[in-house]
């Protein structure tokens, strides 16, 4: 259990809370690319070397690091890190026959460059770690933060999830059948009965601690599972809820990572079947696309929804009559085999 004090996000959207779907940015060339702001908090001399993942990660984190020296650590989840720079560097190795290689691309391409740059820029020399476990990279980072706070109850940590959409990983994933063959508008994402999803990217950052004062959201529990059996997923979720939800408590909002891929729908359907009619079901992948750490975007969205107590129409799949949102269950799966559950509570 831990509290979220501050949160920030860079995503393909700028108006997620609007009810008007026309104000949302649609996919372009089958991709949902992040709308990057002007990075005023990053020194220009440092910014020019940063790849997109690092820019987004650092640019999202710095505005919420009010007192970075007081943070007890930086914990980042990223499956791919700076993939674009990594490929540039590897291409250089081939092109120049392992001779003269410019170091910039290599320095920026490692997964831990985001947490490393944040440590350098904030002069925070404490715990600095990066989780890279594909579709559970952010979930594992969150679990790490919870364990750190268990050992160090008075501490606070910067927690984040970042992944970029590079030309290289888009092409590889496209060949692997991850993305839809046809161009699909986000308005039709969930009704297109075809395999594949829309590629996405983004960064979401959180300052977490055990201090309830000033917090908006409490991350109550996290569960993960590797399985391609929907019955096992359903069983795991039931156990997760039994262990973490009191008898008189209920889920007000089930925020599902449904992504328009008809191959993974069975997992979401299985999980939805555990919920009663008082639960509103919402979806978020039309806002951010699919990427390994999309659950970080979902947690950020959850914080926004709990703060405003309003769920935009485009998010709702099934609406209940309940008006107040107190307990949110986040469920996301990556490629049908990595499953993450988060129980999030309103603490205001």
């Amino acid at each position, binding site marked *: 259990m831990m509290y979220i004090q501050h949160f920030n996000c860079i995503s393909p959207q700028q108006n997620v809370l609007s009810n008007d779907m026309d104000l949302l940015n649609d996919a372009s060339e089958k991709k949902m690319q992040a709308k990057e702001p002007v990075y005023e908090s990053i020194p*220009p001399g440092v*910014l*020019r*070397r940063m790849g997109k993942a690092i820019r987004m990660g650092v640019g999202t984190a710095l505005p919420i690091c009010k007192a970075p020296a007081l943070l007890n650590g930086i914990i980042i989840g990223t499956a791919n890190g700076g993939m674009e720079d990594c490929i540039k560097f590897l291409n250089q190795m081939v092109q120049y026959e392992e*001779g*003269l290689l*410019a*170091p*910039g691309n290599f320095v920026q391409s490692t997964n831990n460059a985001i947490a490393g740059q944040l440590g350098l820029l904030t002069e925070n020399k404490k715990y600095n770690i990066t989780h890279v476990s594909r579709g559970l990279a952010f979930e594992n980072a969150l679990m790490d933060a919870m364990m750190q706070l268990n050992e160090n109850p008075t501490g606070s940590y910067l927690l984040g999830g970042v992944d970029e959409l590079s030309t290289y990983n888009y092409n590889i994933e496209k060949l692997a059948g991850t993305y839809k063959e046809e161009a699909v508008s986000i308005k039709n994402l969930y009704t297109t009965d075809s395999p594949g999803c829309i590629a996405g990217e983004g960064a979401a950052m959180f300052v977490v601690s055990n201090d309830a004062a000033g917090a908006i959201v409490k991350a109550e529990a996290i569960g993960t599972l590797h399985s391609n059996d929907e019955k096992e997923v359903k069983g795991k979720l039931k156990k997760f809820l039994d262990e973490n939800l009191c008898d008189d408590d209920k889920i007000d909002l089930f925020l599902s990572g449904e992504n328009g891929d008809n191959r993974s729908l069975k997992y979401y359907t299985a999980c939805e079947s555990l919920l009663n009619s008082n639960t509103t079901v919402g979806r978020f992948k039309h806002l951010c696309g699919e990427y390994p750490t999309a659950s970080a975007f979902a947690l950020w969205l959850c914080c926004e929804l709990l703060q405003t107590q309003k769920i935009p129409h485009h998010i709702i799949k099934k609406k209940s009559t309940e008006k107040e949102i107190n307990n949110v269950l986040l469920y996301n799966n990556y490629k049908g085999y990595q499953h993450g559950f988060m129980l999030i509570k309103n603490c205001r």
Partner: protein
Amino acid sequence: METAELKLQLKKQIVEFLNLIQVKPEDIKDDEPLFGEGLGLDSIDSIELIVLLGREYGINIQDPKEGRKILVDINTMVAYIEQHRTK
């Protein structure tokens, strides 16, 4: 290639190679220091510049002391390129 032409070409290559997003090639003065004050480059940039000289002009700098004398400003770099280029 005329010296003035080579200077402009080198400035364009430096801006592109080092991704100096806020600098226009024509704004770099020939006698402006590349490191510290002036263009404000750092030690990683010095390695990138040595790679640039190798790739674009076939110049192989192996002695760091030699590099320090060459990578002072555009004038010193161009003078060295004119004398030692192999392509």
